[in-house]
């Protein structure tokens, strides 16, 4: 089945959930007007990135009785939605999470596993890490979600791929830095690994990065969709808000896997065995 994806690259307002929710509902309506089947928002779209000590005020629980989630769940009756938010659990732990909403229900929650605490990042000071990495079924196909730093770990797309994901969705709040070349350094790095993931795993990679500035940190945008042969099929501009659509031709998965049968040939038992051996050795050291 072919379908259409919308990438909602926008600038959330830091700590203002109501304003962001209004923006998000507007972008969902626009995506529907473009006949999109799925709209993807960036990491922490509901809250802004540097929430720091605001985490408790901006958090939501992904349930219909949460006033911040109810309108999103409602909207998902018409279009599938991937959205980044601060999740509070029943024991008051806070996570950077991504929700896949469809048909008025939460299809899947992925919590950010890798919380960076280097350079300009301090996620783990404020948030608890996710402890699972799972692909899940959607009406459009099997997908897996990664949140920003998760995608810098090679194992994340690998595990999701092995778990059956044909669509790797990366929600990001990636800061732009490095202006010594024709392209922004952070854009070049991200493009390189996303293309590599798409081509090596022969899956679709769907990347939604935010734009805007928080205390001098500029998020660079450049959201994109990459086909299973590594070809860029949609690309949002850098630094500017944009709603960018891409047509997904599911048959591209079949064609790419005939051309490059890495999925068929992947020796996951061997990988499991070797990782088991390595983990055991590390434990005994």
């Amino acid at each position, binding site marked *: 089945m072919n379908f259409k994806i919308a990438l909602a690259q926008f600038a959330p307002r830091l700590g203002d959930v109501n304003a962001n929710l209004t923006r998000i509902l507007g972008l969902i309506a626009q995506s529907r007007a473009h006949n999109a089947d799925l709209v993807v928002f960036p990491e922490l779209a509901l809250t802004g990135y*540097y929430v*720091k000590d605001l985490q408790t005020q901006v958090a939501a629980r992904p349930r219909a009785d949460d006033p911040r989630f109810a309108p999103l769940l409602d909207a998902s009756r018409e279009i599938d939605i991937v959205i980044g938010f601060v999740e509070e659990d029943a024991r008051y732990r806070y996570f950077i999470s991504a929700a896949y909403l469809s048909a008025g229900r939460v299809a899947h929650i992925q919590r950010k596993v890798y919380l960076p605490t280097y350079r300009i990042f301090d996620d783990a000071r404020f948030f608890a890490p996710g402890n699972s990495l799972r692909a899940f079924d959607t009406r459009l196909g099997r997908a897996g979600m990664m949140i920003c730093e998760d995608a810098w770990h090679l194992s994340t797309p690998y595990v999701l791929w092995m778990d059956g994901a044909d669509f790797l969705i990366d929600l990001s709040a990636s800061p732009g830095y490095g202006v*010594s070349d024709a392209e922004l350094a952070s854009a070049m790095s991200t493009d390189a690994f996303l293309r590599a993931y798409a081509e090596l795993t022969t899956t679709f990679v769907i990347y939604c990065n935010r734009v805007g*500035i928080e*205390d001098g940190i500029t998020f660079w945008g450049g959201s994109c969709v990459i086909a299973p042969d590594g070809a860029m099929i949609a690309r949002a501009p850098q*630094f500017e808000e944009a709603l960018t659509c891409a047509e997904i031709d599911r048959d591209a998965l079949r064609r790419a896997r005939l051309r490059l049968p890495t999925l068929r040939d992947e020796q996951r038992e061997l990988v499991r065995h070797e990782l088991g051996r390595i983990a055991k050795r590390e434990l005994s050291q």
Partner: protein
Amino acid sequence: MNDLLKPLQINPDLARKIIVAFIREEITRVGFSRGILGLSGGIDSALVAYLAVEALGAENVTGILMPYRTSNPASRADAELVARQLGIATRVIEITPMVEPYLAQYVDAHPERSEAQSKERRRGNVMARARMIVLYDQSEALRALVIGTSNKTEALLGYTTQFGDNAAAIQPLADLYKFQVRQLARALNVPDAIIAKAPSADLWQGQTDEGELGFTYDDADAILYRLVDERRHADDVIALGFDARIVQRIVALMQRNQFKRVLSPVAKISARTVGADFLYNRDWGK
């Protein structure tokens, strides 16, 4: 160009795009539409003026010229040239009548420390802080935020007066080395004479930054880039062929002046302390 500066080269289009958006966003999101800056006639404030005009429009940028009686008249002429080229309004506010009584009574008459250098430094700091008072008062008068003109080289060396020239609402150039400031200034067509002249705080006659520092900006930039951006050890930088005395002096200046780059330490008493574990961005809710 010196080969050692090659890694510092920037793509001016990208830097310009990021900085222009930064000025516009960080000023308008807090409810302002205008910016002001101290226009000295030097390259840093000239470049900030060009970027601010691109971000806010010439009608929303005001240059404040704050000469002292010993200031080089050429500085003022250069500042006026920038204002004319950009079509921005200027205000000339002499600081001489503000600072002179204080300097005469408390600095010149009572040099607590005998060295001439200490007196010069005190005079220079008083002038820099008087300019800060003017800028912040004009900020209120014109409903315009103060746009800073610090660069990364002076921030790292601490070649700045705390609460003086480094006081600003936003800092568009503070992550660019002097070498990169020059490169960006050329791309924005800042007048050549301003780019080419010897940088000077113009706090006393004949003062130049490089003369006072004891090394050139090119040296400082090449060394700082390797120490700070590439995170090399000082010994490693010396082994690359840089003058050991300059490297050591730069390391010492960086460390000694860390206090100028942070908020003052707060004696922690309570469960939650401003500056320590009360953590919010400036842009919170904006």
